[in-house]
Structures are given as structure tokens and as C-alpha cells.
């Protein structure tokens, strides 16, 4: 056992410990197997003994009498006894030390019985040696010792008491037993050597198995570690793909089988577990408009090899559209045939939409800058123009008052008056589309506005166009400048007429609408709430998308040179947006056009429009008035008109001069001031004037305020304003209106 003992397990060497464990397991297995083998052998021997007794000595005789031979009883009972315990232990407690020693003893006793039953035949003695050889199966030399001891004791005892039966002599010396035992020892010695060799080999096998197990465990550990690392890496990759919204995919062209990463599956809206689709089936998710193009890209790439890029939209099962940036590369085999395509799919929906939004913002900014530039130009032009037109129109009006109807000059003066009016209207339009005009909003009923214009509109559109009005009887009120609203309706109706050169149907419709979520159209959003809608629809030629894109731009016209200014819709857009509403257009070529105007509904009653009096008789007064106007022509016109109306008028060329007059203890019932003036604006003059004489009445006159008076063009309600160009009658009426409004407030 030296070889085995030198391999005793070390605490620090698990392989050695496992070697011993395996060795012992194998040894125990062999022992148990041998136990069961002997159980069968011993039963077989027992039966064999009985059969031998039956054949050899079934009966014993005495003369003519016979009876069952003692050998038969011995074979049955003694043999059964000898067999019983070893067999019982072998089946109930295999592998135990006591079991195999009992078997060894029993086997040797059985040998003795069988030798006896066969009449001591020398052949039967081989049973002893055969048994020893089989006992060596245990690979436990101690078992052989037990068996040998039994053999030796048997010989010693029988030599002592029945020497004749063993040695054939009546008296046998003790060494005779040693002679017999010697042969047994001879065999046992070689069996023990064989057992040692066998155990040594078993240990080597166990050692190899332990080494293999250790190697296997090491490999499995490494594989496990690598698997964990791989899974971690896969998880990171998946997370990265999810964060980047970038998935990967692979198409096995030969098998027509597509596999994809988790993110790709999500991007294309496939269910978890969906995999292995054909490429055709994968294309079911591609937007129908992109389907053919995307398929062609892949086909071309497959034919030509190399890589490809294909942006396309996908439609998810819930109807959501996503924009995918796809890239791929064709893998060729050694025959240059395409076998696979590997690719990526990235969700660029947000990016593309952001880019579109940015583009729209830039467009809007550009538009705003354009409008701002035009507005500045318009404002500058309007300021001077309105002064000029005030003078021209004013003096023309005065001239017309002085000449009778038959005077030859009257017609000329009227032409001047009309030209002045057209120039004033053009200036107003310039200010309107650039949203620089001063609005004087009030609560109005749009039905009344349109209804009041209906007769005029029918004349305007002619007989070929059928005008229909569909008014909501419960239409809400809006707050807007009624004059400007009329301008809007007029412009839209004129456009509708021009879109129906061969006649058609024009419908003007009003309705209350409720917008329940924020909507955006042409970059303008409408907040949820109640609105009043004015829709003007025609059955004309309609518009293309290109036309619609530039529809509200100033100086954009499809009517040809000389037929339109290109300011009509821009004016409408400016007025409506300045009134916090929105105008939207719906049109298809050949299908007519509908303009829908949305204006916020207000919960107030409509206010009556001031009654415009015929300016034939200028209202008069005797109050003192200070006119502050830097344009000398306008100032002189106004002074002339007011003095002719009986007022006591003082002039100031600017605000500084006006404040000087105030500081000189002069008091005025009314101060008329221009808004845009050098050195100090009219609004600043108003502020200082109120500080000095709080109850002074002030009337602002201006053709362009540049927000000096108004917020985004809407005049403060407590300020009095007269827009340039004004007529002498308009000036006289407005002054009378202001002076009469709060007569007790003046503290001159």
C-alpha cells in the first residue's frame, strides 16, 4: 500500500483529495459489486452442494435398509447455514468490511463442505483456490487473510481431531497443516501482489480522472467567466444600442433568414421572440412610400456587393411612424457570391424632426427678419408718406370745400384727392402686412361686419360668382379692429373671385369652434380654447403646395405683373396674427380653396361703432389747443383747420418746445402731438406733461407708431389716437370727440 499512502490527500491540494475520494469510490464500488457477485455464487454453491449430495450420496444403507444420507441433510442445512449470513449481509450491507470478511469465511467453510460432500476429491480442493482468486476481486488483502486463517484453522483442528480424514493417517504432525496452508499462502501471496498492483493502477486512474475533473472544472470556470463577461458585454452593447437607438441585423441571403438585435426588434416593432423572418416579411414594416426604393437599394447592393445606406420610414403596429437610418454591407463568399448582409438600423426620427423644426424655425426667422426689414422700410416710408398725404389730402379737402361743383378745378382736385386716398390705402397695407399699423380693436360681431359688407361684396365679385353666407346665429364676439377685419374679408373675397375667372361658388361661413389641444399651422400655434371661425371658400382653381408655401409672403402673387400687389394675403396674415388669431388655408389644385380664420372668442357684448358724421360741416370749438408736430406742413395744415374751426391754437415744432410752453405757465385744453419726433417722442412728452399737468387731454397723431404707443400695434385703450393721413374733417371730429368726452377733466 506504499504507493497509495504516498498519495495521501493534502488539505491544500484539492486534486489529491479528489484522487483519494475517487479511488475510494471506485474501491467501494468494486467491493459492493463483489459482494453481490459472492451472494449469487454462494447461493449457486449451496444448490450445487445439494445437487452433489443428491447425486453422490442420496441415501445410506444398512443391509437391505436405507435412509437419507447425512450428506444430504448437511448439504441442505449446514450448507444453508453457511450460505445464509454472507448472502444476507451482501444484499443488506454491501461494501461493509464485516460483510466481505463474513463472505470470505463462509466461502472457505463452503469449500470444506463441498470437499466433504464430494468425498474429498482432489478436484474439489480447487474450489479453495478458485474462491481465493474470486475473493481477490475485492482488492482487499485482509479478506484473503481471513479466508486463509479459516483454511489453516480447519486443517489444524481436523489434523488434531480427524487426522485420517485430512492427511490419510491416524495421527498427523502439526507441520502437515503448515504444508497444506503453504499452498494457500503461496496463492494468496501472488494474489496480494496482484491486488497491490491493481490498487496502484486504480489510484493512477483515479488520479487521472481527478486531474481531468480539475481541468474540466477549470475550463468550465473559465467558460462560465467568459460567459458572464460575454453576457455583460452583450448587455452593455444592448444598452448602448438602446441608448443610441441603434440596432444591428443580419440577413442570411442563402437561407433568407433575418436575425436582429433587441434594439432592432424594438425599432421595427416586432414582438419579443420574433426572429428568423424572411427579408420580404421584414419589409412589411417599411412605409409603403419607401418600400420600393428601400428594396431597390438592397437589391442593388446585393448585386454589386459593397455597402449601402438607406433612410426609410417604418410603420409600427400602433401606427406610429419612425424614421430609420439604415446602413449595411454585403458579405461575399470565396466565389464572390453574396451570402450575407450585415447592417445597422438607427432611429433618427427625433433628429430628423428636430432638423425639420430647426429648418422651419430658420425659415420663420428668415421670414421674421424679412418682415422686420420690410416693416422698418414700411414704417419709415409710412411716417413720411402719411405726413405728406395728410398735407396733400388735407389741403385738397380744404380746396374742395372752397370750389363749387362747376368749377373746372374741382375735378382736378378730386383726382388729387383719389390719388391721395389710394396712396393712403397702400401705405396702410404696407403697415398692415408688416404688422406695424395701429389697431384700435373693439368687441365686434363678425356676422355684422360681413353682413354689412355683403352688398358691396356682391358687386365686387360679379354675377358669375354665387355668394353664399352661412352665419352661425349664436356666433360669439371677437375683439378686433373692425376696419381691418373688413380689409381682411375684402382681400380674401377678391382673391376668391380672381381664382374663379369662369365663375363659381363663394361661401362665407362663420361658426363657433372649440380647439381642445394645441395645434400648429405654418409654425403658428393656437392654444386650446374657444374661437370664432370665419371661413371663406371658393370653387376655384385651387393651389399647389408650392403656392401654399409662399402664400402669405409679401409681394408674392400668382396674378401676373400689374394685376396684384402681392400684399393682399400678407396684409390679411398680418392683421389676423396681430389680432392673436390665425389664418389657415386648405386647398388642392382644381378643388378650390378654403381660408379659415380663427380669432379668440371674448365674453363681452359688442360695442357700437362711433357714428361717423359727414364732414360737410366741421365741428367747431373755442378751446385752446397746442399742436406738437415736427413736420411743418402737417403742423400748419392742422393749425389752419383748427383755427378755422374757432380754436385757439399754439404750435410747437417738437416736444422740448412744447414743454417750454407748458413750463411758461401756458395751459391748454388739448395737446395734439405727433408720436415719432426727434429728441423726444410723443409718448415721452405725454408722460412729462401728465407729471406737470395731470389732467391735460392728449391726442396722438401718427401714421406709424413703432410701438411707441401700442403693444404690438394695439393701442392702449385710455389713449386717444388719430391715424395719419387724416382729413380736416376727421381731425375736427376727433378733436371735438376728445374734448367732449370728459369735459370736467381739463385743468388748464
Amino acid at each position: 500500500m506504499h504507493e497509495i499512502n504516498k498519495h495521501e490527500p493534502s488539505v491544500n491540494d484539492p486534486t489529491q483529495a479528489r484522487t483519494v475520494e475517487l479511488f475510494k469510490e471506485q474501491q467501494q464500488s468494486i467491493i459492493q459489486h463483489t459482494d453481490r457477485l459472492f451472494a449469487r455464487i454462494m447461493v449457486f454453491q449451496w444448490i450445487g452442494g445439494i445437487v452433489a449430495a443428491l447425486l453422490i450420496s442420496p441415501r445410506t444403507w444398512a443391509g437391505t435398509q436405507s435412509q437419507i444420507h447425512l450428506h444430504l441433510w448437511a448439504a441442505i442445512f449446514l450448507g444453508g447455514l453457511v450460505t445464509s449470513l454472507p448472502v444476507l449481509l451482501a444484499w443488506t450491507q454491501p461494501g461493509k468490511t464485516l460483510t466481505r470478511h463474513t463472505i470470505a469465511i463462509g466461502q472457505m467453510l463452503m469449500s470444506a463442505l463441498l470437499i466433504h460432500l464430494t468425498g474429498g476429491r482432489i478436484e474439489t480442493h480447487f474450489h479453495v483456490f478458485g474462491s481465493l482468486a474470486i475473493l481477490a476481486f475485492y482488492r482487499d488483502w485482509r479478506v484473503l487473510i481471513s479466508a486463509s486463517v479459516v483454511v489453516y484453522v480447519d486443517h489444524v483442528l481436523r489434523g488434531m481431531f480427524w487426522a485420517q480424514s485430512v492427511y490419510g493417517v491416524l495421527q498427523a504432525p502439526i507441520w502437515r497443516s503448515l504444508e497444506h496452508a503453504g499452498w494457500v499462502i503461496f496463492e494468496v501471496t501472488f494474489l496480494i501482489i496482484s491486488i497491490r498492483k491493481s490498487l496502484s493502477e486504480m489510484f493512477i486512474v483515479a488520479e487521472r480522472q481527478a486531474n481531468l475533473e480539475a481541468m474540466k472544472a477549470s475550463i468550465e470556470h473559465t467558460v462560465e467567466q467568459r460567459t458572464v463577461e460575454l453576457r455583460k458585454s452583450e448587455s452593455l452593447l444592448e444598452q448602448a444600442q438602446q441608448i443610441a437607438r441603434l440596432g444591428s441585423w443580419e440577413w442570411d441571403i442563402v437561407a433568407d433568414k433575418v436575425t436582429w438585435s433587441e434594439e432592432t426588434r424594438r425599432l421595427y416593432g416586432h414582438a419579443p421572440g420574433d426572429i428568423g423572418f424572411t427579408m420580404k416579411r421584414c419589409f412589411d414594416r417599411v412605409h409603403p412610400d419607401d418600400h420600393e426604393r428601400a428594396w431597390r437599394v438592397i437589391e442593388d447592393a446585393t448585386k454589386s456587393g459593397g455597402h449601402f445606406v438607406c433612410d426609410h420610414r417604418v410603420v409600427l403596429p400602433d401606427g406610429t411612424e419612425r424614421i430609420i437610418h439604415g446602413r449595411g454591407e454585403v458579405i461575399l463568399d470565396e466565389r464572390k457570391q453574396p451570402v450575407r448582409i450585415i447592417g445597422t438600423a438607427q432611429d433618427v426620427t427625433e433628429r430628423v424632426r428636430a432638423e425639420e423644426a430647426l429648418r422651419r424655425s430658420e425659415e420663420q426667422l428668415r421670414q421674421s427678419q424679412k418682415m422686420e426689414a420690410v416693416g422698418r422700410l414700411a414704417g419709415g416710408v409710412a411716417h413720411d408718406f402719411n405726413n405728406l398725404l395728410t398735407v396733400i389730402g388735407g389741403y385738397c379737402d380744404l380746396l374742395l370745400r372752397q370750389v363749387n361743383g362747376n368749377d373746372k378745378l374741382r375735378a382736378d382736385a378730386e383726382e388729387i384727392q383719389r390719388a391721395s386716398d389710394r396712396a393712403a390705402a397702400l401705405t396702410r397695407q404696407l403697415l398692415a402686412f408688416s404688422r406695424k399699423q395701429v389697431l384700435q380693436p373693439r368687441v365686434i360681431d363678425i356676422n355684422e361686419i360681413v353682413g354689412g359688407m355683403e352688398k358691396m361684396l356682391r358687386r365686387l365679385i360679379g354675377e358669375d360668382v354665387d355668394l353664399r353666407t352661412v352665419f352661425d346665429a349664436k356666433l360669439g364676439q371677437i375683439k378686433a379692429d373692425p376696419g381691418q377685419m373688413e380689409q381682411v374679408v375684402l382681400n380674401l373675397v377678391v382673391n376668391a373671385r380672381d381664382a374663379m375667372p369662369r365663375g363659381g361658388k363663394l361661401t362665407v361661413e362663420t361658426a363657433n369652434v372649440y380647439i381642445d389641444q394645441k395645434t400648429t399651422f405654418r409654425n403658428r400655434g393656437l392654444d386650446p380654447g374657444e374661437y370664432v371661425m370665419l371661413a371663406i371658400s371658393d370653387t376655384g382653381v385651387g393651389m399647389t403646395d408650392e403656392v401654399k408655401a409662399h402664400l402669405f409672403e409679401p409681394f408674392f402673387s400668382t396674378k401676373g405683373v400689374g394685376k396684384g400687389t402681392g400684399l393682399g394675403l400678407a396684409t390679411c396674415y398680418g392683421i389676423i396674427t396681430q389680432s392673436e388669431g390665425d389664418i389657415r388655408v386648405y386647398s388642392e389644385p382644381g378643388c378650390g380653396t378654403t381660408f379659415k380664420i380663427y380669432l379668440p372668442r371674448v365674453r363681452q357684448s359688442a360695442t357700437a361703432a362711433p357714428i361717423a358724421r359727414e364732414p360737410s360741416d366741421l365741428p367747431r370749438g373755442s378751446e385752446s389747443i397746442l399742436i406738437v408736430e415736427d413736420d411743418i406742413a402737417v403742423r400748419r395744415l392742422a393749425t389752419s383747420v383748427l383755427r378755422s374751426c374757432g380754436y385757439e391754437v399754439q404750435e410747437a415744432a417738437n416736444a422740448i418746445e412744447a414743454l417750454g410752453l407748458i413750463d411758461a405757465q401756458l395751459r391748454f385744453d388739448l395737446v395734439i402731438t405727433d408720436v415719432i419726433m426727434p429728441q423726444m417722442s410723443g409718448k415721452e412728452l405725454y408722460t412729462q406733461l401728465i407729471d406737470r399737468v395731470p389732467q391735460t387731454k392728449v391726442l396722438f397723431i401718427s401714421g406709424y407708431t413703432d410701438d411707441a404707443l401700442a403693444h404690438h400695434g394695439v393701442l392702449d385703450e385710455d389713449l386717444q389716437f388719430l391715424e395719419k393721413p387724416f382729413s380736416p374733417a376727421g381731425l375736427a371730429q376727433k378733436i371735438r370727440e376728445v374734448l367732449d368726452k370728459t369735459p370736467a377733466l381739463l385743468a388748464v
Partner: protein
Amino acid sequence: MAIRLSFRLAALLCWLLISAAGAVVVFNYESSPGSSGSTPLRWPENAPIALDENRDTLVMFAHPHCPCTRASIGELNRLLAQAAGRVAAHVVFLKPSEFSSEWTQTALRRSAEEIPGVDVRDDADGALARQFGAQTSGYVVLYNNHGDLLFHGGITAGRGHAGDNSGESAILALAENRETRIAQTPVYGCSLLNQQCSPEKDAALCTK
């Protein structure tokens, strides 16, 4: 644990003791010799078997159904082979008159008949056995050519036990004119007499 081990050892010991007791019974039986009668020192004049004038004459008495005698026949075969014709051998099988001749035609008899040079005959009602004082199957008598009794007894070491034995050794020595101090050995085998008979009674009756 210790109790269970002690129990197992006790059981093992009991088993060993009982087995040993059984073995003692068997060995005792095996080693119990049969009875012998009075064997004449001189070859009976009226013996139906003729004394060989040139060599020793051996007569074995056997029961045709005795299993133990198989060993005796075997030893006789071995002995005669070693004696190499220096002994004239006869095997006499008991033949009770109430049985047919087939009663004696056993494997044992055939074994005897197969031994070269051996005269095999029946012994009607055991008369010859009584004449030579044989009462146990396997009993052997050896006379020299002068009719003097040289040896009588068994030539097996036990009942039905083959192998070396002192009777065989003695006969072989006598046949080879070697000295031997053994002139008589125990005989192991079945009784040629019925159990209720005694040698003093009429032997002829005892076999019936």
C-alpha cells in the same frame, strides 16, 4: 454504532459456532468407523474363492448401494494399479436373496468390474462376508499365497473419503514385500447388516 457492530460480531460468532457444530457432526459421522467381525487368520478351506497360489489375495466386501464405498472402489483401483499385478483382487457385493440380481447391478458394481483383473461376484445373503468377518461395506482382507491373514480393515480415510490412507499404504507395502506395522485399519462404510441385527445373531436373517 458500537452496539450495532457488537451485534454484528455476535451474530457472526453465533453463525460461526453453529456452522462449526454442524461441521463437527459431519466430521464425526465421516470419521466413525463401521463394525468388524472376527476375521480368520487363515484362509478358510471352504471359501468359494480360491486362494491365489502365487501372490497375495485381496477380497473386498461391498454393499452395492453404499455411496461411501465408491471411495473404497476408487482407492482399490488406485492400489491395484500401484501393486501392478502382485495382488489377486476380488470384490464381493452383498446379494440378499429377497432381491433380484438387478439389485446388485449398480454403478458401484460397474466401477468395480471396470478395474482390470478384479473378480467381481455376488455374496448371497452375505455368507462369504460372515465367513471372513466382514460387517461393513469396504472391508478388505488380504492373505498371502500361503493363506495367512496379512491385513484386514478399510482402505479409505473416512466415510466415502478418497485420498491417501494408512490401509491402502499398508496393503501396498505388503504387496511389495515391504515392512509395515499396520495390519488392521478402521473401515468406513455402510453396514452390511440390517440395523436391528447383531453379529452374534444369525447373519443370514439379519440381511433379510
